């Protein structure tokens, strides 16, 4: 007997097939994962080859189904449809049904509502994710893994109306995954205000929970904006990269006191998974990413040099004197140096276009 957990072990995975007059019932138990999925695919192929009109896939005993299992369902559908056959899913959990909904498979297969087994543990799904990203990865791969974490969290955390992941990239916070536009705006409002649970969690490396935003005093600029968008509770849990704060997973709810202890545990579990993905992928920034950043830096540097030159001409100032003058203006107007320099350069361009202006 193979000990449990041994690589290559099928664990408690089992497939049983029964035939009735026109239907074949395929009953599956255990985990449908990377190791067991070829077995399931083989059995279903053999069943479909016999040409039944209906294949019933009984997944009531399935404790975990990864992307491979969904692939098997999709391919069975593709093979059955041309011959007028149909696929019926029996005993699927609410969680699996939502997965099927996301992948569009719920519209083509029939889903029988029977006994619902306990929901699949989210951690089991994200383990596949971590396996898939367990090597230095480029930004695109990390982002898509994080988007998947957000999608999974959205399915599992029932009280969250929206979820996002913010990451500190090049010293600035940015939303890399969000369940919808409102959530992205919520994040952006926080970056702009420089405050909010997301900013605090990503900065301080601990959770920030706004239980009821209407009673909240910690974020005076941001809170009214969130309330204005109908948000009443926020839970931001930090992501850590090699132990240092690197971002946050943010859960938003329209309902006051939406996030109870169970949701906080789930938030923490998803934050851990996302942190693992980040840590595995953090062998250094991808070359393309770095090139883009440097190109950007050169452009900003050029605009600042132009603005400096303009002030030197206008004021008859030296280079460093002009630079200090621009800095004073930026600080006193509460703007970044880049914003100010961009406007100084643009103002000269506007003057240059004015009618009756005869300067060369």
């Amino acid at each position: 007997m193979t000990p449990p957990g041994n690589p290559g072990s099928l664990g408690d995975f089992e497939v049983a097939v029964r035939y009735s007059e026109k239907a074949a019932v395929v009953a599956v138990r255990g985990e449908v994962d990377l190791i067991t999925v070829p077995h399931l695919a083989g059995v279903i192929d053999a069943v479909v080859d016999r040409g039944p009109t209906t294949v019933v896939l009984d997944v009531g005993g399935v404790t975990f189904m990864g992307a491979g299992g969904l692939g098997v369902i999709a391919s069975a559908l593709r093979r059955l449809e041309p011959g007028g056959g149909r696929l019926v899913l029996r005993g699927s959990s609410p969680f699996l049904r939502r997965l099927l909904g996301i992948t569009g498979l719920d519209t083509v297969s029939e889903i029988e509502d029977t006994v619902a087994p306990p929901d699949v543990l989210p951690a089991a799904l994200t383990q596949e994710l971590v396996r898939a990203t367990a090597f230095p990865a480029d930004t695109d791969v990390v982002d898509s893994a994080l988007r998947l974490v957000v999608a999974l969290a959205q399915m599992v955390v029932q009280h969250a109306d929206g979820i996002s992941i913010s990451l500190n990239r090049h010293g600035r916070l940015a939303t890399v995954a969000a369940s919808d536009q409102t959530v992205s705006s919520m994040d952006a409002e926080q970056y702009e205000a420089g405050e909010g649970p997301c900013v605090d969690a990503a900065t301080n490396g601990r959770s920030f929970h706004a239980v009821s935003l209407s009673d909240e005093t910690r974020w005076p600029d941001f809170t009214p904006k969130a309330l204005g968008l109908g948000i009443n509770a926020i839970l931001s849990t930090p992501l850590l990269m090699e132990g240092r704060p690197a971002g946050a997973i943010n859960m938003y709810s329209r309902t006051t006191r939406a996030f109870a202890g169970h949701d906080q545990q789930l938030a923490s579990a998803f934050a851990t998974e996302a942190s693992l993905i980040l840590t595995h992928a953090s062998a250094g920034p991808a070359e393309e990413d770095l090139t883009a950043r440097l190109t950007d830096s050169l452009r900003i540097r050029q605009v600042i040099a132009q603005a400096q030159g303009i002030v030197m001409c206008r004021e008859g100032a030296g280079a460093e004197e002009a630079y200090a003058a621009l800095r004073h203006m930026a600080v006193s107007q509460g703007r970044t140096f880049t914003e100010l320099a961009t406007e100084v350069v643009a103002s000269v361009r506007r003057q240059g276009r004015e009618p009756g202006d005869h300067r060369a």
Partner: protein
Amino acid sequence: MTTVPEHAVDALDRARTDAQLTHGELFLRYFELGGMSSALQVEAFCYGALEPSDHDHDIIAHAINERFSEFGQNHPIAYSDDP
């Protein structure tokens, strides 16, 4: 000859850490703002191993201050020409 007092130079690296900027990120921001020194020199300025000119000090201070203002803090690092 610089007029930046020694404790202010010391303060740069603490401020950099408080602002959660790595040396690399700080250098990129410094470079964007028109700084002419190398990454190694900027790191040495932070640690106080090299003394920056007032101009260099102010660019580094501003890079860190802009980072702080992203957190909603108002320019905690002094410039060489602050009154």
